[in-house]
């Protein structure tokens, strides 16, 4: 209905008023906080060992010898995360697909999967370090687990919740198994799978930092953060935490843009 869409456009006058104002409003509170932070640390209202002045934090990654480790750390973390993430979504996707298309597999695997999924990821760390050591292998396995679980879950659910109409059409058309899979099942589960990938990416990043933080060997943002704490360098800790948030945010934004480009057609996002 034309007049409905028009009235909807009208219902959001903020969008028309220009994004500039919203942006400034959004940034007002953080800006005020930074000013308070700066004032508090300079005027000695708080212990400056604990709350380092903001400008010092901003300069640490450039001027400080230890702080410059950050750049290598980010590179190492991102590469490590990509490796684990790739393994995780491939394995998780395959498992989800298996459970989604085969009742036989679903009945056999899904209960165990659900049970194992209830074990919080961090609880895996002591086991993984015992099995794979504190090196790269354990970290990548941990990241892959972090990414794999949501991926498998969403793929499975996406396939399970396919509207009955689609499957009936496929049945009437007597599609071959391969066509059914590639042209009906997977495409219609795609929105759910995309959400799975999104969650997998966020989890993989948290998993990366967590693994680096808890398994002490090698470079990475998590190791950087842990070492900053080890040496009681609050400036480095703050930089580490900000980096962790920022990288997560950037990854998420990139992925969303990527997903949006990949599937412009399916508008019905679940969840």
């Amino acid at each position, binding site marked *: 209905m034309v007049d409905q869409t028009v009235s909807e456009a009208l219902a959001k006058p903020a969008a028309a008023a220009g994004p500039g104002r919203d942006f400034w409003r959004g940034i007002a509170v953080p800006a005020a906080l930074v000013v308070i932070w700066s004032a508090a640390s300079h005027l000695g209202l708080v*212990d400056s*060992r*604990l709350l380092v002045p903001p400008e010092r934090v901003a300069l640490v990654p450039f001027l400080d010898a*230890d702080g410059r*480790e950050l750049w*290598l*750390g980010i590179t190492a973390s991102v590469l490590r995360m990509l490796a684990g993430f790739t393994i995780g979504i491939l394995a998780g996707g395959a498992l989800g697909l298996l459970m989604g298309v085969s009742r036989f597999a679903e009945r056999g695997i899904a209960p165990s999967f659900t049970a194992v999924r209830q074990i919080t990821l961090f609880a895996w760390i002591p086991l993984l*370090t*015992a*099995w*794979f*050591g*504190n*090196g790269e*292998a354990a970290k990548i396995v941990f990241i892959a687990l972090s990414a794999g679980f949501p991926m498998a879950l969403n793929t499975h659910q996406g396939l399970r919740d396919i509207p009955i109409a689609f499957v009936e059409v496929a049945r009437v058309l007597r599609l071959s198994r391969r066509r059914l899979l590639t042209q009906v099942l997977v495409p219609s589960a795609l929105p759910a799978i995309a959400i799975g990938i999104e969650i997998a990416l966020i989890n993989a990043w948290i998993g990366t930092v967590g693994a680096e933080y*808890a*398994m*002490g*060997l*090698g*470079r990475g943002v998590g*190791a*950087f953060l*842990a*070492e900053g*704490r*080890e*040496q*009681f360098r609050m400036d480095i800790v703050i930089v580490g935490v900000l980096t962790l948030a920022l990288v997560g945010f950037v990854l998420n934004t990139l992925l969303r843009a990527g997903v949006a480009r990949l599937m412009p057609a399916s508008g019905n996002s679940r969840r």
Partner: protein
Amino acid sequence: MIRIRQTLLAAAVAIGSVGVAAAAELPPVIHFAGVGSGFGLPFGQNTFAVAQVKGVMEAEFAGTDVRLDWGYFTGTGPAINEALANGQADFAQYGSIPNIIGYANGLPTRILLSYGGTNIFAVARKDLPIQSIKDLRGRKIAVQKATIIHWALLKALQANGLTERDVTIVDLKNPDTFAALAAGSIDAAFGASYILPLRDQGIVKVIYSTKDGGAQATGFGAIVVTDSFQKRYPEATQRVVDGLVKAGRFIGEDENREEVLRIWAKSGVPYEIIAEDFAGKPLRAQTNPLIDDFYLAQFRDAIEFEKQQKLIRRDVDLTAWLEPRYLADALKRLDLENFWPHRSADGLRQSAAN
């Protein structure tokens, strides 16, 4: 024993690492693991660090294809036990308490030599009226449990007529200890020299140090090898021990003191702190590698401590665990049998070679 990497990591790691080496005398790669810290790639202290930096070990294996791999774990004891268990470490240098825990849980290691003692400090919040260990009665003390520092804490209490029940011991890792002291949620803490920067930041004062408390209260550890490695590669094991003894000699020679301290400072602990840690004592005494009566007595004490604390579930046969022949051989060949003092069980008397 079938090595873990062949089973668990078969596809990933096996290629080129073990497998074919049975006939050869030397392994393709030797993994060293130690406790370390520092930004980026962590770095270690004690004998390993000097052996690595001075190229002593490379010299031992010059002309062979053996690759040397040094890894320093910020996760300390447990991480090193895990590395030894799953084949990511062949030689390890770490504190006795996790060392014993590993062995008591069936980790097949052999003790090759000592890497010397670790000074341990007690610090207390500046705003509290705590001047000595005796004042800790009723206080909350942080220590990382199941470490040699935990052992030293109980030793210190004991020496001052206190028991565990007179204080509250909180199990905290180093960074949490710093934060907890700064936030005032604990009163005191025990640690190695890494804890001293806190004093320089004005948060705590030092109330005790094993430098004053006598040799028996000082922390200690061992350099171990996995049993399978030394059985399979006795030749390589001997070369490693030779290298470690040579590194020990370098550390012990007074003219190298400054250089050695600089090497250790790469681990992220500031040079000034390390210099202070070892001030007033010759490094030769401090880093004595010998398995002598004193060392054995210390180890027995630590085993007893672990049983009391229920850190281990079964007893440890120290004699079966030791493998001193590589060290003896190296000392003899290098003519270093009298370089380090041989200590009596109580650590008080020293004698020349027996």
